[in-house]
């Protein structure tokens, strides 16, 4: 899950980015409102973490512009002002949730996961498809009830595929989910991780659609050669 973090305080921004990365999020960090708008225009992020007190363009303005432009991605505001009026203004401007500074990293991650579930229309926190079960909170993966140990990238890759089961995701789409701006991506990185995943889960669970991309499959579905 790739998140856009808009926070003008260097220390808070760095800590949130590190903490969320540890929780398996891919985080891109901008420090002012204009940069946030540019990043949003890329349409690669699944959720936005927005500080209200941004320089150049306030978080509230960024949020209003987003919603006016038809951007429905979940927005979680981070505010240092705990006055009810500020939170109400944020929610009324189109935010989905808020945290008040100082907040807890685990809570922030949980709220982001909740937002992502709601956006996907799911209530069950476990992502499941066929014999695969994935718990975004605990980072546990099970295949036919058996735990499987995945690296952070492999986990993120599987999560991206499970988020839209049955849909074929291109390499570029998967790359966008997995890597932030600051990550250097090797040209065949996605293939490498897919290869490892199929090795750990079983080759029949991840299907390659030649020339298009990959999708998760139920084991009894007809097999395609990779």
């Amino acid at each position, binding site marked *: 899950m790739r998140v856009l973090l808009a926070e003008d305080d260097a*220390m808070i921004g760095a*800590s949130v980015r*590190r903490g969320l990365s*540890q929780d398996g999020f891919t985080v891109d960090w901008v*420090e002012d409102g204009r940069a946030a708008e540019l990043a949003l225009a890329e349409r690669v992020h699944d959720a936005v973490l927005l500080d209200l007190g941004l*320089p150049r363009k306030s978080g509230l303005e960024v949020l209003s512009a987003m919603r006016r432009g038809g951007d429905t991605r979940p927005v979680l505001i981070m505010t240092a002002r705990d006055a009810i009026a500020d939170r109400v203004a944020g929610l009324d401007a189109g935010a989905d949730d808020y945290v008040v500074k*100082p*907040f*807890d*990293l685990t809570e922030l991650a949980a709220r982001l996961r909740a937002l992502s579930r709601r956006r996907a229309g799911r209530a069950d926190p476990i992502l499941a498809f066929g014999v695969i079960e994935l718990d975004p909170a605990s980072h546990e993966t099970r295949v036919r009830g058996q735990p499987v140990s995945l690296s952070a990238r492999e986990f993120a890759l599987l999560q991206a595929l499970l988020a839209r089961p049955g849909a074929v995701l291109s390499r570029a789409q998967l790359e966008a989910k997995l890597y932030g701006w600051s990550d250097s991506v090797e040209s065949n990185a996605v293939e490498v991780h897919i290869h490892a995943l199929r090795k750990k889960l079983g080759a029949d669970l991840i299907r390659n659609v030649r020339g298009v991309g990959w999708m998760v499959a139920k084991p009894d579905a007809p097999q395609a050669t990779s």
Partner: protein
Amino acid sequence: MRSIRRELLVWLLLGIALAVAAAAVGTYWRARDEANALFDYQLKEMAASLTDAPFAAVPAGAGTIGAGSDAMVVQIWDRNGVQLFLSQPRRVLPQNAQLGFTTLSTDSGPWRVFSALAAEQVVQIAQPMSARRELAASMALRTIMPLLAVLPFLAILIWFTIARGLKPLDRVAAAVARRSPTLLEPLPESDLPREVQPLVGALNDLLSRLRHTLDAQRSFVADAAHELRTPLTAVHLQAQLAERATTDAERAAALGELKGGLERATRLVEQLLTLAREEPGVSEVPPASVDLAALAREVIADLAPLAGAKGIDLGLSSTAASMVMGDADALRTLISNLVDNAIRYTRAGGRVDVALADDAGSVVLTVRDSGPGIAVEDRERVFDRFYRGSGAGGIRGSGLGLAIVKRIAERHRADIELGTGIDGRGLGVTVRFTQPISGSPAPAAP
């Protein structure tokens, strides 16, 4: 305790009593004059009636004219001075008579005497003056009696009138009592007597100043709490990361960042304290002669390592004048904040210049840098606490440095001005101490 009511009552009653007394005295004097005229006329008439009648008829009538001490005394002599009649032998009166009215002084008080010569005899009628005094006194008494009678009622009326008049004071007192630090509305000024209005006006003035001070304090506390939240949030997050760290290297890195966060929070708290200390009325340090050049040298020495680390050329260029009256610690903070800001916002390899000049008897401190400067539209607001210029370029100060500088400058009655820095670029801060310079004698202006 003094009471306006009691004092007014006592003095008013005293005044009324004096007026009554004056009226009594006046009445007495007038009544005595009238009594004199009346009795004199009576004496004359009586003398005339006695001289008209033949002697033999006199004793019976004269004897009955009066009895007791107030009675008139009649004496009649013949032409040869032989006393023919004396109505009251016990009375001692002059044997010789002076014609007309005379007032004689005798052992039994003054007497009024009238003597008349008629045909063969001299008739003298005498009357004690005390009769007239008594008449006058009783008239005076009758005049003031009603006044004395209404005096108690007057006292009661005065008592209640004063109470009524002082009611607005009670109302004001009650209104003041209802005020509290959270409720400092002005007192109602309508319906107040002219005498109470200045008091209420002054109170309202005080209340409004108090309200402003309290509002300023409250907004300062709210701002401070809000500003503290940011570094504390950072520390909070950094601590969580340190907790999560699984390897020693990760933990060391996280703890290093935590330390940085704590330093930042500490610096903010220190600056808040400095600002609070510079609040008007807080610092009671008596002004002393301060050498700004010495302070500038200390500050530059302290900050030289910071400047050196960024490759900034920091120096004191001139010290033409340097003695001012003030608080040395506060002035050191002022210079330190300005120089620290200049270093912070100047890019590596830049320059920061501190100078002290004499301008028409004023000591002028300038701190100029070759940094990005402050946009003209931001120059007013940068002195507001917690305001950070839009051109700060990612450099995060507490937003308090210049607010502190301004407060200290105000306390020293120094003007502060923002302009351009070195070579027309960057920021130049000019602090002009317009106070009279003491210490080293300033060179006389040409």
